[in-house]
């Protein structure tokens, strides 16, 4: 039995552990806040917003904020919670244990956050009262899935790189890279998940042609590559981050022991 066959064991065990009142309350809160906020926005407007505006509003709140927050809470402490709870040692002394735990928890993070994102995006579009909502819902749901898949890998890697300060490192990454640098029209934003998702939103909603043609600056924000290219890059980044996390987990020494345990 190798790593692949052990991953389901971790996945189902960890999923059962997530079914607690506080965690389910978090799930509901993350699902509910984008549609509630959009409902408030809609109630202050006299007419339904243009489709482009609706697309950006839902995108910012669902695939970006709700998904990123959900994943941040799930994936970032995947390793640090085991180290702090001193339960890591039981997993580390199993054949293929660390890698099974890494990928099992990755699947838990995306399987937990994708439904949150899908519900919040769908309800968000409905809350805005868009005339033809189907296309927008489909696009937002696709972005939710990609967002969860990519961000889970990113935050899992951050948790493996800095297990003792995982949450702080996660917040710093989100603020510095995904919020700040993703908005800088320079090569550095190509490294962010946010840039790829934003480009995909513009492509899939046909918002790009007129805008990008008018300004080179906007081209730096939305790129001029095809949607397939951006999806490919996102998936490559995801595989790269997971491979790096697995490599670190395999070769770095993670013990809960401190010097006092010598």
């Amino acid at each position: 039995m190798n790593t692949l066959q052990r991953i389901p064991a971790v996945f189902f065990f960890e999923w059962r552990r997530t079914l607690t009142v506080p965690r389910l309350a978090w799930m509901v809160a993350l699902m509910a806040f984008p549609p509630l906020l959009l409902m408030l926005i809609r109630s202050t407007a006299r007419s339904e917003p243009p489709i482009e505006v609706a697309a950006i509003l839902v995108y910012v709140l669902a695939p970006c904020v709700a998904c990123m927050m959900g994943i941040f809470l799930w994936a970032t402490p995947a390793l640090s919670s085991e180290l702090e709870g001193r339960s890591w040692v039981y997993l580390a002394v199993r054949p293929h244990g660390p890698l099974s735990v890494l990928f099992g928890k990755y699947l838990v993070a995306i399987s937990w956050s994708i439904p949150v994102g899908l519900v919040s995006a769908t309800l968000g579009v409905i809350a805005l009262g868009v005339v033809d909502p189907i296309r927008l819902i489909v696009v937002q749901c696709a972005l939710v899935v990609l967002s969860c898949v990519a961000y889970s890998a990113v935050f899992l890697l951050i948790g493996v790189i800095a297990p003792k300060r995982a949450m702080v490192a996660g917040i710093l990454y989100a603020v510095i890279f995904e919020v700040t640098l993703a908005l800088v029209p320079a090569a550095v934003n190509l490294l962010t998940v946010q840039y790829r998702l934003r480009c995909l939103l513009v492509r899939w909603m046909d918002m790009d042609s007129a805008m990008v043609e008018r300004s080179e600056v906007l081209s730096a924000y939305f790129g001029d590559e095809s949607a397939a290219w951006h999806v490919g890059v996102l998936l490559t980044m995801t595989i790269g981050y997971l491979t790096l996390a697995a490599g670190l987990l395999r070769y770095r020494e993670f013990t809960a022991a401190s010097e006092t345990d010598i």
Partner: protein
Amino acid sequence: MLLELNNATRLYGTVIGVNDISLSLENGAHGLLGPNGAGKSTLLNLITGQLSPTLGSVRVLGLQPRSSHELLRRIGFLPGSEGMYADVSAIEWVAYLTRLQGFNAGDAKRLAVQAMERVQLTDHMHRKILSFSRGMRQRTRLAQAIAHEPEFLILDEPFSGLDPIARHSMTTLLQHWIAEGRSLLVSSHVLYEIESLTRSFMLLSGGRLLASGTAGDIHTLLTDVPSEVRMRVDKPRLMAAELIREELVDSVQITDDGELKITTTMSNQLSRFLGQAVTEDRYLVTEVRAADDSLQDVFNSLMKIHRGGK
């Protein structure tokens, strides 16, 4: 060969966890003794592959622990820290960890139930771990270490925090394990806990292997080491002078509260002297105390030998 260490050294930055240990152990039961901070946990982490040696090599059952999945299938480990998931039942936790050993769900559950029977927790195995007493948690931790039927069981301070009944129960269980012909390495900082399981000891202190062998071997090693005796006597200065004159002591000290503290390598002659002095009414001896025979004293003595002193 069960265990083979060649100049194994492990550094944590500038702190030495394990210092240049070389030893070979055959299959069987062995005790790893040392005071807190001696390097026992580091050594066990090296043996279970959680750490790799900074220098030297470690081989367990002929395999390198750090890179061997096969070895992890063949060993069971009970770590020194608790680290259990409090929110799941004992059987769920043991079955989960057994599954990670490579068994399918059905077999893992069956083996977990057997292990819970073995540690006598069948009646409570569906309870959440957070409701368990310290002894029950310790037995559950042992169950996860033995559920997959390993050939080499490694236990880090298994008796820590147990009450006498739980301690006895743990000892009995481990005695059965040894009687089945399986190998065991158990660490402790209390000698008598391990004495009931094995006569093969390794003594560790300051990251160094001070001695190994049977209790008799270690006792022999200590025969030339001065032992400390404290006495309350009516004329301490007079007795001190007589002991020095008779050359029965290595050092004498009279403490502030009048206690006579001596070190001697001639314990037998000293006891004869005292017996004679008391029966002849030369001194009124109200208390005689040998420093207790605790492991810490053994370590202290061995450290003195190790450093070239007496």
